């Protein structure tokens, strides 16, 4: 690679120094705040919001709007959660596993379909609008058919979770690919990227921000479909969050119902904001899609 070797000579080096001096000027950046400060800045509003919600809840209970056995306060719910701790944990484990399994399967299907529909014109004409249509269909509406197909069993839940998540994932990828600036595609072609190589090295990374947004939405749909499913399809002898909700309701145990609801909420928030939210932010920052002035 002799062509690209550096030129010697002290005048050249002097010029190098001057030029990189110019470049350093162009790159001047303000210092970043410390890690602790950033974490604190992100958490205190959330903690305040939680505290506020708890206070309002307690106030409503104290107001006597509903009898306490129907609407218990935070303290009672806290006790109920620990009273039934083992069951709740095993239920959360089952539900989470069902969600993850269905989501991963939807990821494979949604990505494959999305890629094909985005890149093959005939498939686009045939299925493009159908996928958007599927996305607007409430997934609970699939349950009667799913139960007929798979009985009251795991299969029915799995089926609906996949159908809930896959269209969002496919759609995220399709719109991501549709919105790639043409200059990047042409740039890839000039560099000699064709076919599958172009897909892997140019198209997929270029569509990534929108794809991750699709994944996030897909997970939200999967989680919703899953809990609807667990309320409808109860499998004997198996703890799950949906089944726990239903069981507590049958025992008229409001505190138990609310405790399970909070578990559902917390898991939802954790995955949505910690996992997908963080991924989304990281990618947007890396791609330079964040306005640094704010």
């Amino acid at each position, binding site marked *: *690679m002799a*062509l*690209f*070797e*550096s030129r010697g000579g002290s005048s050249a080096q002097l*010029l*190098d120094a*001057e*030029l*990189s001096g*110019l*470049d350093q000027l*162009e*790159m001047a950046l303000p210092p970043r705040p410390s890690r602790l400060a950033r974490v604190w800045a992100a958490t205190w509003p959330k903690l305040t919001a939680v505290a506020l919600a708890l206070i309002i809840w307690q106030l409503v209970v104290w107001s006597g709007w509903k009898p306490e056995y129907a609407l218990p306060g935070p303290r009672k719910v806290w006790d109920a959660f620990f009273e039934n701790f083992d069951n709740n944990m095993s239920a959360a484990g089952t539900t989470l596993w069902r969600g993850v399994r269905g989501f991963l399967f939807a990821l494979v299907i949604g990505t494959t379909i999305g890629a094909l529909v985005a890149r093959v014109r005939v498939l686009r004409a045939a299925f493009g609008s159908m996928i958007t249509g599927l996305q607007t269909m409430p997934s609970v509406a699939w349950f009667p058919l799913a139960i007929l197909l798979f009985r009251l069993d795991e299969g029915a839940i799995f089926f609906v979770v996949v159908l809930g998540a896959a269209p969002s994932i496919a759609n995220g990828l399709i719109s991501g690919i549709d919105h790639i600036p043409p*200059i*990047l595609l*042409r*740039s890839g*072609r*000039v*560099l*000699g*990227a064709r076919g599958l*190589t172009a897909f892997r*090295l*140019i198209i997929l*990374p*270029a569509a*990534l921000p929108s794809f991750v947004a699709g994944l996030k939405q897909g997970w939200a749909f999967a989680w919703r479909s899953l809990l609807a499913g667990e309320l409808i399809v109860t499998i004997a002898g198996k703890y799950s969050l949906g089944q726990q909700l239903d069981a507590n309701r049958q025992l008229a145990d409001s505190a138990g119902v609310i405790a399970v609801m909070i578990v559902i909420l917390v898991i939802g928030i954790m995955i949505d904001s910690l996992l997908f939210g963080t991924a989304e932010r990281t990618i947007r920052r*890396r*791609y*330079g899609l964040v306005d640094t002035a704010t």
Partner: protein
Amino acid sequence: MTRASTAARREEPATESPRSGAGSLAAISLDAVTKVYGHAGNAVPALDRVSLEVEPGEFVCLLGASGCGKSTLLNLVAGLDRPTTGTVEVRGGRPTLMFQEAALFPWLTVRGNVDLALKLRKISRPHRRETVQALLEMVHLTGFEKKMPHELSGGMRQRVQLARALGQQAEILLMDEPFGSLDAMTRDVLHDELERLWRETGLTVLFVTHNVREAVRLGDRVVLLSSRPGRVVAEFPVEIDRPRRIESHSVADLAAQITGRLRDEVRRHGAV
């Protein structure tokens, strides 16, 4: 002018090396190329019967008012688009195009962007690392390997694009206003680097610019396009000895002459 128009037309496989001796064989030849964008009602003619030949190892600069079809022409030569009528033949090897607009991949670092060009040519990893480093040194961006494109200035992005294009080691280099947003000092350095590389490798270069002095500084020949639709209106062979300096009198004199002609052209078409 005569040299270009009398060049022999022979079919050769595109893989044939351009520097294998056949001196009269054009590396790039456009024959009565017309390009019209859009259809019927709102058709925009961008190029009108443009004929141009570039010989292997020649450095040709293309000048013309904004919107006269220079980028269109480069796109056609790069094979990114097809002419409406006429033929574009590229026999002098693989072309690469350095785009006018920002064309770096935003998900890759500076190093990653340059590295991709080498990776797509199936060069082994250890070898790539060295070459990328040398390329970045050449465009004076050592130390910026890990930056993302959006963290760079416009001129720095252009230089990364230049490094990426050179990394392809194509035989034909098409450059669309590559140094438009550089300060004069950096630009002069890159002129030297580009000229050195061109002499050492026998690259064929088609270089678009708005800067007449830059065209005279670099080119063996300066081609002037008229506006809307673009058409070749004049060619100026540059017979100033190399190495040239952009601020020298001979460069300034020829540049003044070409600017005069360019001004006539722009005035005639009532463009800006």
